[in-house]
Structures are given as C-alpha cells and as structure tokens.
C-alpha cells in the first residue's frame, strides 16, 4: 500500500525514497560502527604483543597475534574463579529474586486478606530509596551477620526488586479470577495454580525480567567490591579491574580477559537480537 502510493507520486518522492531506503541505513551503519568501535578495538588489543600498546600512531590491528595474552589472563589471574563467582551470584540471586517477586505479586493480585494493600505499598515504597544512599548501613548489616566474603552477601541487596514485583502484579491482574476458582474446584491449590497456570501465561514478561535481573547482578560493581575482601570471592566486574597486569603498560592480558568475559554475552546478543527487541516491547515498558 505504501509502495503504491509512493510510486504514483512524482520524481521528488522518488528522490526521497532513494534517501530513505539507501542513505539512511548507510548513515545508521556508520553511526553504529562508531558505537561498536571500542568493542572491536578491545578485541584487537587482546592480541597485541606488549610493544603494540606504546607505538605512535596507535595500532588498530596487532603487529602479530599474541595468543600468550589469553594464556596469561587465565593462568596468572583468578579470572576463572571470578567468573564462577559471578555466575553463581547472578544465577542464584536471580532465582531468589524472581521467586520472592512472583510470590509477592501473586498474593497481591489473587489473594485477599487484611492489610494486603498496605503491606504491598510498604514493599513498593522501597522503590523510592536508592540503594546507593544506604551503602554504609547495608555494609554494617552484612558485617554484623558475618556475611562478608560470601555469595549471599554479594547478592543480598539485589534480592528485592520492587519495580519487578509491581510489573508482575500488573500482568497477573490481567488473568481472570475465574481461572483460580475453576482450578480450585478441580482440586488445584494456590501454589499449583501459580506454577501451572499463572506463570505460563505471564511467560514473556517473566523471561524479560529474569534476563534483566541476571544482567543487573552480573554487572554490579560497587557493592560486590565493598563486601568482598579476599581475591577468591571477587566477581568478574571487580576482579577484572584488579588483574595486576595494567601496571606497566602490559595491557594485553587485561584485554584478553575482557574479551573472554564479553564474548559469550556478545554471541548471545547476536543470537537473541530479535527476542530482545520484541521482549522489551512485550515487557510493558513501552507505550
């Protein structure tokens, strides 16, 4: 329909079509290449032998490929241990966070009991308090519980996500209450109703929130830095800034470590691009 309209109109519009169909995507690609330049350059730099970092003009591609950077990144640092810590905390933290959020959202949407709305507002009120303002007190709490240098200490302040609870409740509320009554008549309790009927119906949003939780815990920096004292408990984000290579312009192993940490996520993004773009639209954030 659009194409017909455009074709019918005069040469001015044909020029406009050339601009929009060929020039704009090219501009976009140019802009996009500038945007990902740091990523490409760091990948190149992960193969730089030590001398390549100090040349002028700076190098874009390595003079020869230095695989040793990768070997040293793994052997001379605790990178693998850092990655294990990050995986464990991000996966475990996300699991707890989603369970907590789903339970609260379910009760808020389907169950009626005295004080429900008040308690729900108490939970949501934490949205207004940025956790950065509470770093000192939360640190003291974790210290008093003896949880410094533990996985639980690292994830503790990320376990409650009031915005996610709110979004889940909004989605749960679109599910008719008759479903619950029908399920109850068939002898299906609340927990089974939640896991068998509610969650499958809210799957796109639940998946988007799970992904968001995972990346936010995986990317956390300041808090994991504060609550870990020993190198072996550090997460990737903290550990990668303390590899100890970057002292003497010996950047190669650091960039190799960055590439090792980033590559799996980049590949996942390439594979999931369509899902991510659609998932954001579906998670109710838009419109």
């Amino acid at each position, binding site marked *: 329909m659009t194409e017909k309209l455009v074709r019918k109109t005069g040469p001015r519009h044909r020029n406009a079509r050339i601009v929009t169909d060929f020039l704009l995507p090219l501009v976009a690609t140019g802009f996009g290449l500038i945007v990902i330049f740091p990523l490409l350059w760091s990948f190149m730099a992960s193969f730089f032998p030590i001398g390549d970092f100090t040349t002028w003009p*700076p190098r874009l591609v390595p003079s020869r490929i230095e695989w040793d950077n990768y070997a040293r990144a793994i052997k001379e640092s605790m990178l693998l241990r850092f990655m294990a810590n990050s995986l464990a905390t991000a996966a475990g933290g996300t699991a707890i966070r989603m369970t907590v959020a789903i339970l*609260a959202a379910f009760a808020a949407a389907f169950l009626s*009991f005295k004080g429900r709305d008040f308690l729900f507002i108490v939970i949501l009120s934490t949205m207004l308090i940025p956790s950065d303002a509470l770093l000192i007190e939360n640190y003291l709490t974790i210290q008093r519980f003896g949880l410094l240098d533990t996985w639980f200490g690292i994830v503790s302040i990320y376990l409650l996500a009031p915005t996610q609870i709110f979004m889940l409740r909004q989605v749960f509320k679109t599910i008719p209450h008759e479903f619950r009554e029908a399920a109850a008549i068939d002898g299906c309790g609340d927990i089974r109703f939640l896991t068998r009927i509610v969650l499958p119906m809210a799957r796109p949003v639940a998946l988007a929130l799970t992904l968001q939780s995972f990346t936010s815990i995986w990317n956390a920096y300041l808090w994991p830095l504060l609550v870990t004292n020993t190198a072996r408990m550090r997460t990737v984000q903290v550990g990668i800034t303390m590899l100890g290579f970057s002292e003497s312009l010996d950047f190669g192993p650091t960039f190799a470590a960055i590439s090792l940490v980033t590559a799996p996520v980049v590949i996942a993004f390439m594979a999931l691009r369509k899902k991510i773009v659609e998932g954001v639209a579906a998670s109710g954030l838009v419109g």
Partner: protein
Amino acid sequence: MQSTPHRTIVTRHRRLSRIAPYLYFLPALALAVTFSLWPFFKTVVNSLSIVNLSGRIVEFVGLDNFRELSASGNFRDSLRNTFRFTAMFVPANILACLGAALLCYRKRRGTAFNELLFLLPMAVALSSAALIFKAMFNPTIGIVNWILGIDVDWFNDPAMAMFTLVALGVWLDIGLDFVLLLAALRNVPTQLVEAAAMEGANAWRKFFSIQLPMISPTLLFVVCTNVKDAMLISAPVMILTEGGPYRSTQTLVYQMYLEGFKSGNYTLGSTIGVVVFLLSVVMLLLLFRFEKRGVYYA
C-alpha cells in the same frame, strides 16, 4: 474420642489458610525491612548524630552535620560535579539513543544488522567498558587523540576529564535506551505517519507533531531513569578517573564511598547518603510535574 484429632486438623488447616497469604508476602517484606527501610531509618538517624567506627551512635547533634556539609568546599565540588555530569549526560544520551532509534525504526534492508550494532554495548559490562575507555582516552598512547587529531590530556585536565565519564556513560546506556525508543517508535500507528506524509508534512514536522508526542511516555521513562542513574553515578568514576584530577569528577556517591569506606567517617557518609536520597526524590517529583503537562497518553 475420634473427633478430637480430626477437629485439630481442621482448625490447623483453617489457621494455615488464614496465615498463608501473609507467607507469600513475608520474603519480600523481610527483605524490604532488612535492606531498605531499616537501613534508611538508621541512615537518617546517623545523619543527625555522631557515629563511631562500629556504626554506633555516640551523640545526637541535630542538623549540625548538614550545616558542616553545606559549608565544606569538598561537598560543594561533589554536588556541582554531579549536576554537571547529569546536565551533560542526559541530553547527550537522549540525542544519541533517539537518533539511533530514528535511523533504525523503519524495517529496511540492513536494519537487523544496524540494530545489532546499537544493541551490542549492552553486552559489555561496566567495568570492562571503563577499562577499554581508560586505554582509548590515554593521553599519550590513546587512540582517541589520534583519531580526532587532537592532543588533550584527558585525565589530567580538570576541564576535560568529565567528558570521558559522559562518553562512557552514554556508551553504557545506549543499548537499552535505544531498544526502548525503537519499540516506542515502532508502536506509533503507521496510518498516522502516512496520513501526515500525504498531506505534505516533511520529516521534521512528522517527528515533532506525531512521533514525539506518541513516544513521550517512553521518552519520559528514559529521561527519568537517566536522571536517576546520573545523580547516583559512582562506579565509572571509581575506575576511570578516581574523582580526579583535582576533584573535578568527584560525584556525590563517590564522595560518600570515600568518606564511609576510605576515611571511616560514617557520620559524614550517612549525611551525604541522606542528601543523595533527597535529591533523587526531588528530581522524581519535578519529572512527574513535567509529566502532567508534557506527556501524551494514547
């Protein structure tokens, strides 16, 4: 005889079904109190007192801490830097993300590839990106100076260091905000845009009269989260500039970290924490006022 155990089971069952709903709320409530509401209360009380190194209150001093803070040049620098960063970061970020989204929202050949380019920064974690930027902006061997053909001492020039933080901030944010705005632009009904085009509206007119009002809820959401994140910036400062040179990039949360965890001054740290909280609430209120006037809901 036999009815007694039966009755207890029934009453127990009834009692359980009365408590059960609260059990669903319990984990969330416990976490809210332990890691947000109670520490918030304690932080406020701390800011009105003198606190020792084990976090115990020694003396109640009223608003003295706030008075001391507002008189200190150190704190004023942090405040000014935080606002300066926010004022530079938010417009730059919105321009970059909206520009990218406008270039990509129409599905043409190559759009999938372009989308991927703008999405990929989302895959890079904060500290990795900070390390990459630190090397790229290196004044003597960095590639940024070479490409731009300039000789700027990024990390030793108080006037320039903030730009490295803004560049890093925009780069870290572009992925998510791009997707949000892209989805919003694609949700604008195509009939509206086509009708405008048929009546001779040019690209500017189309954008300002139709697309911008239609995406304004999403845009407001992005601006809100941008402002909040900018006011709370700390980690990029820690890795990239460490607040320097001459405190020119020391932000509020970074100063709070320095006072609380480097100097062990919990009193001052908590006082800054309260200021951070107040600022973020005021910012949100301002934005909500703006929402009533400037946002169009379909």
